[in-house]
């Protein structure tokens, strides 16, 4: 149970692939112009991560150490191509709007990073959990950034939901406000970088807030240390 808690905390917050490890920035910044694009890419990445972690972990004792990286790369590439084929067949509109970024999942360092750092050293269940939590962490960052940019840039939310979820979902589309001139900066790549920077800053300030609270709780010990040493 504590393992579950630790992995969840690592994936979603402490070691979030988007905000802390800063891995997979290329798709993260490029496709987050709408929530639905972000959701599509996030789910695709989550699927690939889950599949690759499970497979890598289940064959970890049979893989010779010297050639583990090429084998991991092949496994990941296989999963990415499989996801690409399936998306092309079943969510054609979304596949077209995500374009090149589906095959680019293969270059998302978060995936090979988790295969190498976690799945190749741990049993299947924790590895699957790690993949799930890391993938969710990445997905959440994508979603927040996507929502931020879509609201600021186009004044809408869930535009194009029918591409991912089928025709019933077109009712999800919310037009929050209507304007003729879009806020271009939010839609274009610089907006993604600025939004990302703000999210990282927000996370760091929350972390600092909690850290400072802790110091206050153990205040006397901290003071004893300060007086105890000359510097």
């Amino acid at each position, binding site marked *: 149970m504590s393992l579950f808690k630790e992995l969840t905390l690592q994936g979603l917050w402490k070691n979030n692939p988007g905000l802390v490890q800063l891995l997979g920035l290329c798709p993260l910044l490029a496709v987050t112009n709408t929530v639905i694009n972000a959701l599509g890419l996030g789910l695709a990445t989550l699927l690939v991560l889950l599949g690759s972690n499970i497979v890598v972990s289940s064959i970890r004792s049979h893989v010779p150490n010297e050639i583990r990286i090429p084998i991991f790369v092949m496994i990941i590439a296989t999963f990415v*191509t499989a996801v690409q084929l*399936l998306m092309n067949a079943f969510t054609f509109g979304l596949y077209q709007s995500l374009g090149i970024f589906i095959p680019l999942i293969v270059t998302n360092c978060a995936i090979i990073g988790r295969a190498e750092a976690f799945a190749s050293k741990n049993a299947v269940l924790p590895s699957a959990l790690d993949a799930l939590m890391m993938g969710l962490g990445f997905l959440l960052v994508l979603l927040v950034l996507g929502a931020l940019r879509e609201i600021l840039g186009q004044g809408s939310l869930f535009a194009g939901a029918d591409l991912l979820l089928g025709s019933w979902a077109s009712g999800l589309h919310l037009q929050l406000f209507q304007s003729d001139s*879009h806020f*271009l900066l939010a839609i*274009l790549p610089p907006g993604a970088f600025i939004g990302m920077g703000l999210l990282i800053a927000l996370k760091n300030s929350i972390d600092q807030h909690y850290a400072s609270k802790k110091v206050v709780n153990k205040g006397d010990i901290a003071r004893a240390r300060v007086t105890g040493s000359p510097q």
Partner: protein
Amino acid sequence: MIRMVSKNAIALALVAVICVVILGSLHLLTQPKIAEQRRLSQLAILSEVLPEVQQTRALLANCTLVNAPDELGGKAQRVYRWQEDDQLRAYVLDVTAPDGYSGNIELIVAISPTGTVLGTRVLNHQETPGLGDKIETRRSNWIYSFSGKAATPAEAKHWAVKKDGGDFDQFTGATITPRAVINAVYRAASYVQQHPELARAATNCELTP
């Protein structure tokens, strides 16, 4: 040493073979579905520009590839021919406008043999969001203003944005994009009028792009 290397090589090859088998079978399984999806999306576009056509599948099959980079922009553009009662009613052409604000703008244009534009849509572009993307139907209805316009040489001076003395609205902050689209549609219409032999050219498109 050699033993270890060859063992590794065999292991690597084995993984590669497994991956290839998995992907190959998945490809075979999804291929018909993907081809159908592509055809459906193409049919949807065709019936957008020619709403009165019922037999869109027949229209899709009656297609010839044309190599006219100067007029249609790009090599091997598709030209669909819509015939009804043995009479040619319209051409539907793939047109590329090479002079967009950022890169090519891919269009599909339906034109009657006499040079009247029946409808046009943008398939693909990289114009600035919020400015140049008003050529899309989901952003503005500008592209509908082409329908019913005659693109004969006598009408040539109307084929420009209002700023240049023509009939078409420009967008605030973006004139290059509408100019590119207008010129591309006009070139396509003139091409159709100058080349009546298109109607009899052999059918040589593959059904799936």
